[in-house]
């Protein structure tokens, strides 16, 4: 385990940023944090997490895919793909690290999404263990260990120091690149903090939330559950939950007419929107109830059914904090699962 005094954290950032682009949570003017590019003077946020998830760095909200140029009857297809630059995402929480696995299964299965794959290949994930989880946190429900986050490198921050441990080859390389700044250390301080955090995790109000009622094969059982009617009644149909969600991965592909050609781009889409799944024959989800059901069934039934039981919710709690009407997956799970 390598150790660095927090007094020298900016030296570490400077060293990392010398040959790789570095992203880390930074406070914005409204007080919330956002993954931002590090530059001299950038201050690492103390926030538990960012409003927007780090999925943005692999799967941006809008992205150009290709261009077409037309001349007479000829159409030229221009491949605008570029190899991603090398970058480091620093301070990723365990829930968000897990979200990359959820996204990988979608974007890296055949046919591989080359845009996503390139960024994923060139990224080093430095995770950060939680020590002050929020009441909205429920990662343990999905078997995620906030105290021992995955990623290429895991980090633990105490009041005075930060500790690093490599988990992958990329992680070893990262630690080698900052070796001069860090010193070897035992894990006493880290273990003390882990024990404290473990106690807090048990006291979280959502600690008893389970996935027992969900998983592959539950479609028929849950399809007509009255919860969809009841809980979708006041859903505004906005896209907040899907856009702050680290695992929502639906997108739309559109063409932008430039006058002498076309730029084909994709942008995030939301199953909450009325035009989502609109096809030539019309739309098969005509009411907010159907859209609402889709979102939760996807996270809790369809995705695990197709991905070996892995749920596509990581319990980060962003939707719990941000839904304008405070309706969310935890409430849906409680209602269906019954109070334990």
């Amino acid at each position: 385990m390598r150790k660095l005094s927090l007094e020298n954290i900016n030296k570490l950032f400077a060293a990392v940023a010398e040959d790789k682009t570095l992203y880390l949570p930074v406070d914005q003017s409204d007080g919330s944090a956002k993954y931002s590019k590090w530059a001299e003077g950038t201050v690492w946020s103390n926030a538990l997490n960012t409003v927007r998830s780090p999925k943005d760095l692999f799967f941006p909200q809008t992205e150009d895919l290709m261009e077409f140029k037309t001349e007479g009857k000829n159409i030229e297809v221009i491949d605008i793909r570029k190899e991603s630059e090398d970058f480091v995402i620093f301070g990723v929480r365990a829930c968000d690290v897990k979200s990359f696995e959820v996204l990988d299964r979608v974007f890296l299965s055949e046919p591989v999404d080359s845009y996503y794959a390139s960024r994923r290949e060139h990224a080093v994930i430095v995770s950060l263990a939680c020590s002050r989880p929020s009441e909205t946190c429920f990662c343990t429900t999905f078997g995620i260990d906030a105290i021992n986050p995955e990623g290429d490198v895991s980090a633990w921050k105490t009041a005075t120091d930060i500790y690093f441990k490599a988990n992958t080859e990329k992680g070893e390389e990262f630690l080698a690149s900052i070796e001069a700044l860090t010193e070897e250390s035992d894990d006493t301080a880290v273990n003390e903090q882990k024990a404290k955090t473990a106690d807090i995790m048990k006291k979280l109000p959502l600690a008893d939330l389970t996935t027992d009622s969900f998983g592959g094969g539950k479609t028929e059982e849950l399809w007509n559950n009255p919860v969809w009617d009841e809980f979708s009644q006041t859903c505004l149909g906005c896209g907040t939950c899907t856009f702050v969600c680290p695992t929502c991965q639906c997108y739309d592909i559109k063409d932008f007419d430039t006058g002498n050609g076309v730029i084909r781009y994709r942008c995030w889409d939301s199953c909450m929107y009325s035009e989502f799944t609109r096809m030539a024959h019309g739309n098969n989800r005509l009411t907010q109830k159907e859209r609402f059901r889709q979102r939760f069934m996807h996270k809790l039934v369809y995705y695990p059914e197709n991905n070996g039981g892995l749920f596509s919710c990581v319990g980060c709690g962003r939707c719990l904090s941000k839904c304008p009407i405070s309706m969310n997956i935890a409430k849906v799970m409680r209602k269906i699962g019954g109070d334990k």
Partner: protein
Amino acid sequence: MQKITRDQLITKAVELLSNGTVSAVLGWQKGEFDYDITPAVFTTEEEIKNNFVYNDFCGANFSKYLVAKTKKLEGKILVFLKPCDTYSFNQLLTEHRFDREKVYAVAIGCEGMADVVKLKNKVDGIISIDYKDDAMYVDTLYDGTVKVDYADVLAERCINCKSKKCVAYDELMGEDGEVIDSARFDEVARLEAMTPDERFAFWQNELSRCIRCNACRDACPACTCEKCVFDNPNSGVENKAPANSFEEQMFHIIRAYHVAGRCTDCGECSRVCPQNIPLHLLNRKFIKDINECYGEYQAGAEVGSRAPLVDYTEGDLEPGEVFERGDNNA
């Protein structure tokens, strides 16, 4: 802290439901942590007794729900309206957006609502909240019980409350208040006093956080188009995501124009914004301008009033005056 209690509202709801006055109740449903309250439609006494709550986090404006909820309704729906909600209620009636006959409106006095973001900036790990006369006592994961003064977490729209007067109801609970000479335009005046570059930088910074989730539009009681142009693939301007930060300005400015003269300044747009963008300031700028150019006008103060922008009087401002005014403002 609210003077009207949960128990009073439950008694009222149960009474109106059981005597057949209404067949459904639009109210607040309890959440996991006391502050995460969801608007809900209750149809049984049991649901109301078990799940109905009312506290300082019941800020949601129910007026807009009436557009959808009255459409297929048998009988009437009971809606609880805070003073500011009654303005939206009237404005929607002015625009013929729902059938008044299908609604039983109970107006309730309001002491101002709390802002969850403000509370969370003060307190970590909120488990539950006890509302006492002097302050709210928040039970937390980390710091035991924390005393939080109501004034310290009062929502901006309530600090600058424009009116405690209930302008529409079938029945009033609690005391009716008065229209308030609030300081709600002070922040607009501060922005007006900026140079154009400063003002541009201010809005660029705020709007750059927009994730185009449409929560502002979807919560807005003035946004009740059956199909918004931004959702309509045939409109030519449909877009689900921001292409650049300028486009976000376009979206919000177009929306502000669209609701100009109809916005009652209920503040829902800013409350629901996940990125804490002070969207209400755009609308307040329009309200302030309308007041200054055409005389004081409050949308929703009564049903059927003609907003200055859709009315003609001989004393109306000439286009040239507007142009000069814009010039001075730059």
